[in-house]
Structures are given as structure tokens and as C-alpha cells.
């Protein structure tokens, strides 16, 4: 347990430190939210219609941004070798790395998402649901993204490869979350979409580490 906590604090500190993780992601997120009205035109009605979806897509892209540092850095400096030697199962270590990634980028983005959506003209009542969806979706993005990041370890042009691998894995959470937000703003039942998003995140948390650990062992072999 103490090992797991030590690893978690290391991951979070590394991700937060050096002006990395949250600032880059938040900057990217703010950039997308600012550029969107400039590109689509500032009519409030049109912006309000796309605001929740745009906030949601920007979240998925911002999650993609920090993925290449999730395993690559530890792979290059040998820390990943040490992690495989530790008594902590590699599956748990991978799960903790993704959790740290989520704490450093997913959680701050979840706080920023409602603000950005409301600034774009979404209804304020939507804010709690956007926050909850972003929190859940961020978890799914981190763990599914971890699969892509670990598979492309040691590959040429790993960052691009990660994006290609992760794109199909991001489809269900984007659909579920976007659907829940859309139904809510249309006054339709939204619980089904949110429950499916939570189920997908739970499955990603449960099964993702197995694939990640297998991929890491393969890259180190």
C-alpha cells in the first residue's frame, strides 16, 4: 500500500511539476474554447447549440496531448525497468500511472470544462453534469489512452502512433458523454448516457491495466 501511494505521489508530482500536465492541457483547452467562436461566428444561438459538444471534444483532445509522456519518459530513463522489478505488480503500477495522469490533467480539466461551456453559451444548469461527465470521461480517456501510449513504446514517431491507436478507443466515451449532455440540454432522459459513460470508464479502469502491463513487458523484453 505504501509503495502504491509513493508511486502515486511520484506520478502526480512529475505530472504537475515543471509547468507540465495541467497548465499545458488547460492552455490548450482555453485555446480551443477561444478559437471556436472566432471560427464558427459569435451568434449566441449557434454557439449554445455546439457548446457542450465542443467542450467535450476539446476534453478528449486535451487528454491526448499529455499521453506521450505517460510511459515514454520512464521507458527512456529506465524507471519502467525498475517498476517491473518492484514487488508491486506491473498492472497496479500502470493503473497508478494512469490515475496520476488523471489527477494531474483530467481533474483540472473537469473543473475547467463547465466554465468553458458556459462561456460559450451553454445553460448554467448543465454545469454539474458537464463536471461529472468530464470527470468520468477523463478517467476513460486516461486509461484507454494508456493502452495506446504503452503499445507505441519504442516505436518510431510514437506520438502520432498513439493518436492513431487511441482514436477508435475514444469513440464510445465521446458518444456516451456527448449524448448525455445533449439529452439533458434537450430536456430528455440523460441518465442512460451517463451510466454508460461510467460503465465504460469502469471497464477501462478494470481491463486497461492488463493490456498496458502486457505492452510494457513486451517493450522492455
Amino acid at each position, binding site marked *: 500500500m505504501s509503495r502504491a501511494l509513493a508511486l502515486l505521489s511520484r506520478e502526480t508530482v512529475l505530472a504537475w511539476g515543471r509547468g507540465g500536465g495541467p497548465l499545458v492541457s488547460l492552455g490548450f483547452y482555453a485555446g480551443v474554447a477561444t478559437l471556436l467562436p472566432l471560427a464558427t461566428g459569435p451568434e449566441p444561438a449557434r454557439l449554445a447549440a455546439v457548446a457542450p459538444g465542443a467542450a467535450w471534444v476539446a476534453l478528449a483532445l486535451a487528454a491526448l496531448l499529455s499521453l506521450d509522456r505517460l510511459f515514454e519518459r520512464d521507458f527512456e530513463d529506465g524507471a519502467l525497468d525498475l517498476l517491473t522489478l518492484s514487488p508491486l505488480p506491473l498492472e497496479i503500477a500502470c493503473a497508478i500511472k494512469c490515475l496520476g495522469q488523471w489527477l494531474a490533467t483530467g481533474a483540472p480539466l473537469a473543473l475547467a470544462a463547465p466554465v468553458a461551456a458556459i462561456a460559450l453559451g451553454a445553460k448554467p444548469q448543465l454545469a454539474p453534469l458537464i463536471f461529472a461527465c468530464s470527470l468520468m470521461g477523463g478517467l476513460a480517456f486516461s486509461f484507454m489512452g494508456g*493502452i495506446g501510449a504503452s*503499445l*507505441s513504446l*519504442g*516505436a*518510431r*514517431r*510514437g506520438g502520432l*502512433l498513439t493518436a*492513431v*491507436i487511441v*482514436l*477508435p*478507443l475514444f*469513440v*464510445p466515451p465521446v*458518444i*456516451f458523454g456527448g*449524448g448525455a449532455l445533449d439529452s439533458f440540454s434537450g430536456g430528455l432522459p440523460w441518465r442512460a448516457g451517463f451510466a*454508460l459513460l461510467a460503465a*465504460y470508464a469502469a471497464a477501462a479502469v478494470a*481491463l486497461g491495466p492488463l*493490456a498496458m502491463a*502486457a*505492452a510494457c513487458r*513486451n*517493450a522492455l*523484453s
Partner: protein
Amino acid sequence: MIPAPAFLSNPERFMAFSRWAAPMFGVIAVALALAGLWLGFTAPEDYQQGDTVRIMFIHVPAAWLSMFVYVCLAVASFLALVFRHALADAAAQAAAPLGAAFTFLALVTGALWGRPMWGAWWVWDARLTSVLVLFLVYLAYIALRASLDDEAKAARAGAILALVGAVNLPVVKFSVDWWNTLHQGASVFRKQGPAMTNEFLWPLLLMGLAFMAAFGSLWLVGIRAQVWRRRAEAAALRAARG
């Protein structure tokens, strides 16, 4: 799926079998395709769709194969990952470009059919989107294998990705169904029996079998090519060592 994998897992036996099986499947594919196309072009025009209904005889078998090949890819990847069998890996590697080609064919013929029928080349509909995602998964698999230099590592990483995709694709399919649907549902494999007349059903089934045989033939040729390539590389390494 793989006929008698235990028998064919021996590379020598596989090479002896595929030597005559590959051209035989090819001949069967050509014969079935000729029969299917003949019946397809002599079938009467559809009362609603006119001549464009004949696109179905290419489009639907390609769509069937796009999924069937993924099942083959996933099973071969599983066998390669669990038993570390080189032939299973060669099978997975050879299946991926074929699957991508069938998926691409289904997408292109679908677009050609969609333009006259729906008035649009592409609509963001559930079926179309899930096939597009399937195509992306094939591309990701091919890209992953191509960008890892170490053959053994590329094989295992590819197998992991293929299995993750196999778990994920039903969810993708279900999620896009829930998202939006315009494409018609299944009309051949239904509980109530096929929803089309025999004049269309026969050419469709013949073309489906022809595509299946063509895949079998090309797959065997692809696996043979992989085996020869690996043997050539091993021989080159031996020669270099002196």
C-alpha cells in the same frame, strides 16, 4: 475460422497444404464470382432502386468480410500471443491488409450507393461510422506493426492491440447504434428469414461465398509470403554471421 489449427500449426504441413489450397480457393472464388455476377446482372431491376441495387452484390459481401476478417485477425492474434506460434502471427499480419481492403471496399461502394439513394456520399450514421472505426482499427494495427523494428515485439504489441480492438468493437458498434441510425438493419440473417426475393438472394449469397474464397486464397498466399520472407531473413542472418 481457422480450419483445423492444430493440423496446420506445423509449418511444413501448412506449406504443403497451402501450396495447392491457395490456387484452389482462387479458382473457386473466380467461378463463384462469375456465377454471382451473371445472376446479379440478369436479375430484374429493383422496383424502388432501379439498377443501383446491383451495388449490393459487392457492397454487402465486402461488409461481411470486413467483420469476418477481423474475427480471423483476433483469433490468430490470440493464438500468437498465448502459444507464441510464429505461423499464427504470420496469419495475423497477413490478415490485416486484407481486412483493411475489404473495409475500404465496403465504405467506397457504400458511398457510391448512398449518393443516388440517400442523396449524400456520406452520412454520419451508425453503421457507416462503426465501419469507419473498424477501418481505423485496421490502420492502427498496420501502423503499429510497421513502426516497431523488432519483429517479435511488433508481433506481440500488434496482438495486444488486436485483442483490445476485439473487446472494444462491439461497444463501438453498440454506442454508434445508440447515437444515430439511418442505415437499414440486417435483411439476410434474420429470425424471420431473408427479407428479399430469391432473384436477389442467390447472387448475393454466391458473391458472399466468392468473397470468402477470395479471402481464403489471398490469406494463404499472404501467410506463405510471410513465411518465405522470414526464412529469407533468417538465411541472410546466417550468411552474415558466416
